[in-house]
């Protein structure tokens, strides 16, 4: 008991600390914690906003097991995650490596690669819709372009991208690469945190560039990689904007991501209870994935 006693100074500090974080704490409790608890309660109810809340027990959860669109949307999300995460991770890391060189004008390049992550989401999505337009779009025009000195086009009949159930998802995955700037910035910070001495030491040991990368850069960057991995897994499971703006989940449910379907249930079909149950399932899935991450992490993540 006596050990826990705080000195007066410490007490004042603690109070000040709480005061400093109180804007966030209040915001969290009012705008996040409240709704989180409300959604847990709602997930056992049926509610369409207009008529009174009706308790239905586990019916929402039972319904999810029979809903073909739940399965489809989860598959879609996994498909997206399994392609977009590795591509994004490798893309961001390699860009960061390139931009970590000591070259003239590097700041300009860094800015250029980071700009897409800053520009407003919906505007860039509309831009990408133009790029993917099967007839007029930049991408298909380039693909239909003739190979130099011949009359043969590169691809005479390029995919319809967002209009084709098989190509809509690859289109969104390709587009996701546009946003590697965010991950790149974190890698760049991580790369610059690696002490120069370690590279010098490895040089003395006769390491070549590849060995330096695999035995110095990667291990020392592993906490950063770990962070980015968790963030991109969470991010891919919550992917929403692109499908909401560009495809509305179509064509033929090909891009109906889990969170999009959740949103549609809540704000298009007004099944608040069902949407809440979906949200909790998503929370459990992400929680399990993240716990697995933390379990595996000690095997490959090295903190300095």
């Amino acid at each position, binding site marked *: 008991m006596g050990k826990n006693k705080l000195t007066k100074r410490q007490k004042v500090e603690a109070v000040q600390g709480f005061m400093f974080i109180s804007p966030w704490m209040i915001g969290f409790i009012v705008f996040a914690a409240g709704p989180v608890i409300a959604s847990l309660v709602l997930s056992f109810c049926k509610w369409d*906003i207009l008529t009174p809340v009706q308790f239905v027990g586990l019916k929402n959860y039972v319904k999810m097991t029979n809903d073909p669109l739940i399965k489809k949307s989860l598959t879609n999300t996994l498909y997206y995650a399994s392609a977009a995460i590795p591509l994004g991770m490798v893309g961001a890391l390699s860009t960061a490596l390139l931009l970590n060189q000591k070259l003239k004008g590097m700041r300009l390049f860094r800015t250029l690669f980071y700009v897409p992550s800053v520009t407003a989401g919906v505007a860039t999505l509309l831009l990408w819709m133009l790029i993917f337009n099967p007839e007029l779009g930049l991408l298909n025009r380039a693909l239909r372009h003739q190979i130099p000195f011949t009359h043969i086009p590169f691809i005479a009949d390029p995919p319809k991208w967002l209009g084709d159930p098989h190509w809509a998802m690859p289109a969104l995955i390709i587009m996701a690469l546009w946003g590697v700037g965010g991950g790149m910035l974190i890698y760049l910070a991580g790369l610059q945190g690696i002490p120069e001495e370690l590279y010098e030491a490895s040089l003395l040991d006769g390491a070549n560039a590849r060995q330096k990368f695999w035995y110095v850069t990667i291990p020392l960057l592993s906490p950063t990689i770990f962070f980015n991995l968790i963030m991109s897994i969470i991010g891919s499971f919550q992917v929403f904007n692109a499908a909401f703006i560009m495809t509305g989940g179509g064509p033929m449910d090909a891009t109906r991501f889990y969170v999009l379907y959740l949103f549609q249930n809540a704000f298009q*079909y*007004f099944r608040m209870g069902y949407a809440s149950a979906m949200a909790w399932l998503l929370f459990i899935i992400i929680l399990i994935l993240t716990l697995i991450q933390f379990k595996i992490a000690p095997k490959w993540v090295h903190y300095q």
Partner: protein
Amino acid sequence: MKKLLTYLAIVIIFVPLVRWVAKPKVRQEYTKDGKVIIEWYNYSTPEFLKLYTDYLVPEFEASHPDIKIRLNSSLGDTGYDAKLLTLIAGKIPPDIVHITQQNFPFYAVKGIFLDLNPVIARDKSFNLNDYFGPVMDGMRFQGKLLGLPSDFSTIALVYNKRMFDKYHVPYPDKNWDWDKFLWAAKKLTRDTDGDGVIDQFGFVNINSYNRWPAWVWMNGGDILSPDMKKCLLDKPESIEGLKFYIDLSTKYHVAPMGAQTLGQSYQEMFMTEHAAMIADARYAYKTFAKGMSFPWDIAPMPKGKQRVTTFIWGGNSILRSTKHPREAWEFLKFLSGKEGALLNVRAGNAFPAYKKVAMSDLVLKSPLSPPHDKVFLDAIEYGRQAPFPPQFTEFNQAMTKFDGCYLGYTPVDQICRQFTKDVNAAISGEVW
């Protein structure tokens, strides 16, 4: 003990805080000088809002000195429903709301609108015969009248005379049947620059619930049984009707499929001469007024086995939760009556539901009118409202399956059967 105290402190501080934030705001019911405040929620665009604040509201308040109208607008139709639901969930609902055939079903089945039948029975100054019956029926649900329509239009064929002249196709008339329509659409579909890609289409078959039901009915099929207990879209004549409509793009290629619209809306395609005909409502005049470089006219929809078309409307409903139903009813009458009708004319908003104004020269000889403008009005006799069952949400969701048909990926008959199965399951309560 100390821990407990800390928790207690948190509870003491935060619970009232949360309660304060979540406390329902009370809406003002009366002005300071004792007038009843009626809040009207609508989705007027800024130019409409100006008409309301400059003409409609002052006129009403002048003739009803004990009522004050407060406008609440979502400024356009995106977010309209979300805001309305938030107002209702937040316990500060408006008294009267603007509604169209698109979102009416959702609210109607929830029973939040006031039934006007008893109100009308009491009010001798109101005559139902002043309004178009079929339009009024659009706001009836299970025997209740849940609002008054203020404006409407049937769907008719809008065509580009210049393109018809250019390819020597006779103008459409009331004798057109499906064969004639398809023949003309084929002649008007052209690859003008010879690059193997079609540049102009005969027609645009948009995937909309206020368009395709007409083609099912034309063919003698139906969507729901009159008692709303059974879906009939799997009947052969229903399937055949919808299939013809979708085949226009997927089989006959006289209408654009998927990306062939080049990202244009069907109205834009018509206005830029990428489509020679469209099925549209008189509401389109406002858009057309922005610039049409060619002569155009209106013709009835082609007839199949029977003559029929869909129609769309806008109107207003009183919320059952209102504390002032009498005052709200006065304003509702005003919105749909002569004054509201004249405002709709001024705004170029299709036809007023109020007969005397709709059939006056004010409308039919407006500067926007093409020669056969009256086709829209005549079509009300054979116009039908696209039906909806009480299980509207499931019905609406089942309809998304047709997307694949319009892209040519899934056969129409298969989806019609799937749709029927889904809707019947929803009606019988197996799904909710």
